[in-house]
């Protein structure tokens, strides 16, 4: 549904550009925003309305990821200054709720940018993900973190 | 301190030292994966170097080279992985 809405939005933006006759990037963005507003006003169908909530969610998701990445890197900076004595690496099996390939991939990328983690592989039946972690004090804590922090947010956007 | 000078005296030397550090890892190995990841890192650093050069010489076209570097770094990583797996299977 969101796809067709997005398409509608796009077509309207193009029509805007054609109508105004100015083929510039700014104009296109402007047209997109205008049509977004129009669509927001005229759409009643509940299913279709998801399109309008997903955008803010997406933005907040990106901001979240950005923060995570910065955090990750700061940790890494810290890490690189320590000796190895503080390391407690482990390869942890994390069960997956997400199903499709794309979802799994996005999740994996997200996990990868968290502090001290590295996705080793996904099992062939797509049920678990093996993650190499730099610091594991409690295995289950880590698994929960992955599931709550990343998987949930991901599912929110995609479902 | 001008931007150019700042880049010349701070950024580039730091990048240079990073290159050396990574290169030491490259020389030390010991496994092929180590060397590959070092090479990967070298390429990433060189992307930074390119970016810095494009600023100091005011040449935005260098950025495309950076893009190409990133792309190829990915190819080589996958290729090594491919190789390692194949070698193991043999």
């Amino acid at each position, binding site marked *: 549904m969101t796809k067709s809405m997005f398409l509608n939005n796009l077509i309207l933006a193009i029509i805007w550009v054609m109508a105004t006759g100015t083929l510039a990037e700014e104009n296109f963005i402007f047209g997109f925003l205008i049509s977004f507003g129009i669509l927001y006003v005229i759409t009643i169908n509940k299913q279709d309305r998801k399109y309008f909530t997903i955008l803010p969610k997406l933005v907040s998701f990106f901001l979240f990821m950005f923060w995570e990445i910065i955090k990750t890197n700061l940790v890494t900076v810290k890490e690189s200054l320590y000796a190895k004595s503080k*390391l407690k*690496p482990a390869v942890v099996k994390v069960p997956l709720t997400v199903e499709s390939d794309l979802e799994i991939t996005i999740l994996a990328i997200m996990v990868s940018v968290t502090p001290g983690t590295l996705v080793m592989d996904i099992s062939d039946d797509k049920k678990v993900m093996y993650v*190499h972690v730099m610091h594991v004090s409690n295995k289950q804590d880590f698994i929960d973190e992955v599931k709550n922090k990343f998987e949930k947010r991901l599912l929110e956007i995609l479902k | 301190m001008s931007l150019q000078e700042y880049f010349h005296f701070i950024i580039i030397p730091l990048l240079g030292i990073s290159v050396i550090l*990574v290169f*030491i890892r490259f020389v030390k190995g010991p496994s092929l*994966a180590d060397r*590959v990841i070092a090479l990967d890192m070298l390429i990433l650093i060189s992307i930074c170097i390119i970016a*810095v050069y494009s600023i100091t010489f005011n040449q935005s076209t260098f950025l495309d080279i950076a*893009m190409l570097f990133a792309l190829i770094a990915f190819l080589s990583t996958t290729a*090594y992985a491919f190789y390692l797996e194949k070698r193991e299977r043999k």
Partner: protein
Amino acid sequence: MRDILIMISSTIGVLFIFSTSLAMLRKPDVYLRISVTSKASTLGVGLILLATAIFFNEYSVTTRVIAVILFVFLTVPIGSHMLARAAYFTKTPIWGGTKIDDLAGQYDPETHKLHSEKRNTSVRPEKTDKPS
């Protein structure tokens, strides 16, 4: 003002790069090194590219910078994953400090199939205490 932004952004970026390089040298096994590289570098590269985008302040440059950053963010984790996986297959030694290894014995040595339930195949790297 723009110059300051550029300086800050690039400095942080370079520091990330530098620390990653240092970490690469110091981490005891290959998995840890891969792990380190796949993160700091991404942000380092991203920030420095950001500095460039600010410097040129041009639409086309900005789009290209965004493209590069996106690309790096997409490929580096995947690449690291593949390298780590391959290293594991080839039984590249894992640091002795690695307490838990759920992956050990999970790969089928012939088909490279990865199982989700507990197995006990021969695919498990030996542990080493000597940092390399």
